[in-house]
């Protein structure tokens, strides 16, 4: 009786994205002693956003390391550790600060296996919050999906919900390549149901595979990270008007699962992409280009449309900030325009 009720309770467990990442890291730290976490405030402060809460207490100074405020320095140290055979998780307090260290991410981590002719792998994870938050203004709101997604040698993932977050961080840690994990600060506190399968210590979300969050027939809506939730909201609203959207959660930016998107477009004949980053040279731009290069192009009944952040540095004032990020109304508008409604 106790076992059954335990099972029932577990399968309905609500877990926030923050807890999911914490669990994922905890499980991988336990599984492999070569895994360690370093970054600013990750140990004694429990993490600037409390994502690494409890880990220092459990694993101590050797596995959870507080660094000085020196991104270029500690990212370089982390890459060196990965080359020497350890499996570091390097946290950037936000990815805006990764710009201080980007040479290490690209030139030391991403390109090395290629440059060495297959001799030197770099099994490192760079993780942290990415993109807009609330009122943190221009220098703290940039989305780096397109920048990192541009580079061969890197894998780039962008979780939306708790299942994504837990499964992707575990896959990233187990991957022998440099993986950039773009989390989202506004999602950290959001609870989601974690299925009992997802609660298992061996649950992994494969890198490079998108997920269809909602089936639909009229239009394909593709997104990553927090905007996936907005797309689902838009889909609910439109459903009442008889428009059924198929919402795809990319989960991975690079390598992009274009096949799932193509198969969907070949079914619905319409495409809208949604992202938080800037429009030029963005994730949506890449999706549109690839659609044109593949079989799905001939199935489009209308040009593909992108919904993105506004093409400005993030302003601080609330009214300006609200209009600089894609809102549900912008997604609905774009969908209706595409469907010529």
């Amino acid at each position, binding site marked *: 009786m106790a076992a059954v009720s335990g099972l029932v309770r577990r399968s309905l467990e609500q877990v926030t994205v923050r807890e999911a990442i914490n669990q994922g890291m905890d499980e991988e730290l336990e599984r492999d002693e070569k895994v360690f976490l370093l970054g600013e405030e990750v140990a004694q402060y429990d993490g*600037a956003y409390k994502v690494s809460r409890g880990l220092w207490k459990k694993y101590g100074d050797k596995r959870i390391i507080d660094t000085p*405020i020196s991104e*270029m320095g500690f990212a370089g140290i982390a890459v060196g550790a990965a080359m020497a055979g350890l499996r570091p998780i390097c946290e950037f307090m936000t990815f805006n600060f990764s710009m201080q260290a980007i040479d290490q991410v690209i030139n030391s981590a991403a390109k090395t296996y290629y440059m060495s002719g297959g001799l030197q792998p770099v099994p490192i994870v760079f993780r942290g919050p990415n993109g807009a938050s609330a*009122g943190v*203004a221009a*220098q703290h709101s940039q989305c780096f999906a397109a920048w990192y997604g541009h580079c061969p040698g890197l894998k780039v993932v962008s979780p939306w919900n708790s299942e994504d977050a837990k499964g992707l961080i575990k896959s990233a840690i187990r991957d022998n390549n440099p993986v950039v994990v773009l989390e989202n600060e506004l999602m950290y506190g959001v609870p989601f149901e974690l299925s009992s399968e997802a609660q298992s210590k061996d649950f992994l979300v494969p890198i490079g595979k998108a997920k269809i969050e909602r089936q639909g027939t009229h239009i394909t809506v593709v997104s990553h990270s927090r905007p996936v939730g907005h797309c689902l909201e838009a889909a609910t609203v439109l459903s009442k008007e008889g428009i059924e959207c198929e919402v795809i959660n990319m989960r991975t930016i690079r390598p992009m699962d274009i096949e799932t998107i193509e198969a969907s477009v070949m079914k619905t004949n319409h495409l809208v992409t949604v992202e938080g980053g800037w429009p030029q040279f963005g994730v949506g731009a890449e999706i549109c280009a690839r659609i044109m290069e593949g079989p799905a192009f001939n199935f489009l009944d209308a040009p593909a449309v992108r919904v*993105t952040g*506004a093409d400005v540095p993030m302003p*601080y*004032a609330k009214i300006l900030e609200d209009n600089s990020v894609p809102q549900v109304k912008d997604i609905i508008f774009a969908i209706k325009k595409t469907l010529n409604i």
Partner: protein
Amino acid sequence: MRKMLAAVSRVLSGVAQKPASRVLVASRSFANDATFEIKKCDLHRLEEGPPVTTVLTREDGLRYYRMMQTVRRMELKADQLYKQKIIRGFCHLCDGQEACCVGLEAGINPTDHLITAYRAHGFTFTRGLSVREILAELTGRRGGCAKGKGGSMHMYAKNFYGGNGIVGAQGQIFEAYNMAALWKLPCIFICENNRYGMGTSVERAAASTDYYKRGDFIPGLRVDGMDILCVREATRFAAAYCRSGKGPILMELQTYRYHGHSMSDPGVSYRTREEIQEVRSKSDPIMLLKDRMVNSNLASVEELKEIDVEVRKEIEDAAQFATADPEPPLEELGHHIYSSDPPFEVRGANQWIKFKSIS
């Protein structure tokens, strides 16, 4: 004569709004200036340092007091507005560190150039912006010094280059030291050492906490950053050093912040409340200046209290403005992307939303 003076001053201390006659009494019952001993600075690669005594005039003293009190009250008002959610995002307060920004400004000229990191509200004020413009920027309104576009960490003024949100440049500072020394640039590098980098104490983050020595080939001073006169004299010394063509110099100001790193940090998980209270009771910069001035008859307790009242009112008025002023108009979302360019179109959240961009 003395009896008459005492009588007059008794009457006047009860009637606060008679400036003319008060000045008359003031010039007779207060000292014009006083000499104070200040702490000797620790020196690195310097034969001699700033003087260990300084003269403070009554006029300067009152001005410094007013400025420090204004910064203090402005930061506390920002704390209040943040808790009311009228200020959003990041907010890094400098209460406790008033002697640094006010003392620094007292030692340089308005034509000198200053740049700092995110704990910038005090410097924004001392570099010449009004409390109104600063608070309205914090609340994101059109009357803010950056028209509401920048927020707390991105305030600029003439010869003040912000307000910058990205630090983590330990390596970059050594690059800057190298070039400044190589080319003998007239640059004062200042470290406001408030003992913590976010939630990490300096002992846990720095192999050497003698920051004033870490310019290596660059001479340095370690200064009592809670004593505004010490900061002023050290700044005057450093500025004179630079202006004489000798090259860069480093100043470490030992100071303290009462608030946590930012408004989202309670500031007590990595330090004790006792520590904070001890600094407040023994080393508060405003209290130190006040005690000096009152004890050497440069000002009276009542006079300083009046300044407190005036400052409070100024802050209240500024906060009112900052709360009532409207947000910037949506049409301005695309403005000021480029300088000196003809107008162009800026894309919004989708291809049908367009904003005009004016330089």
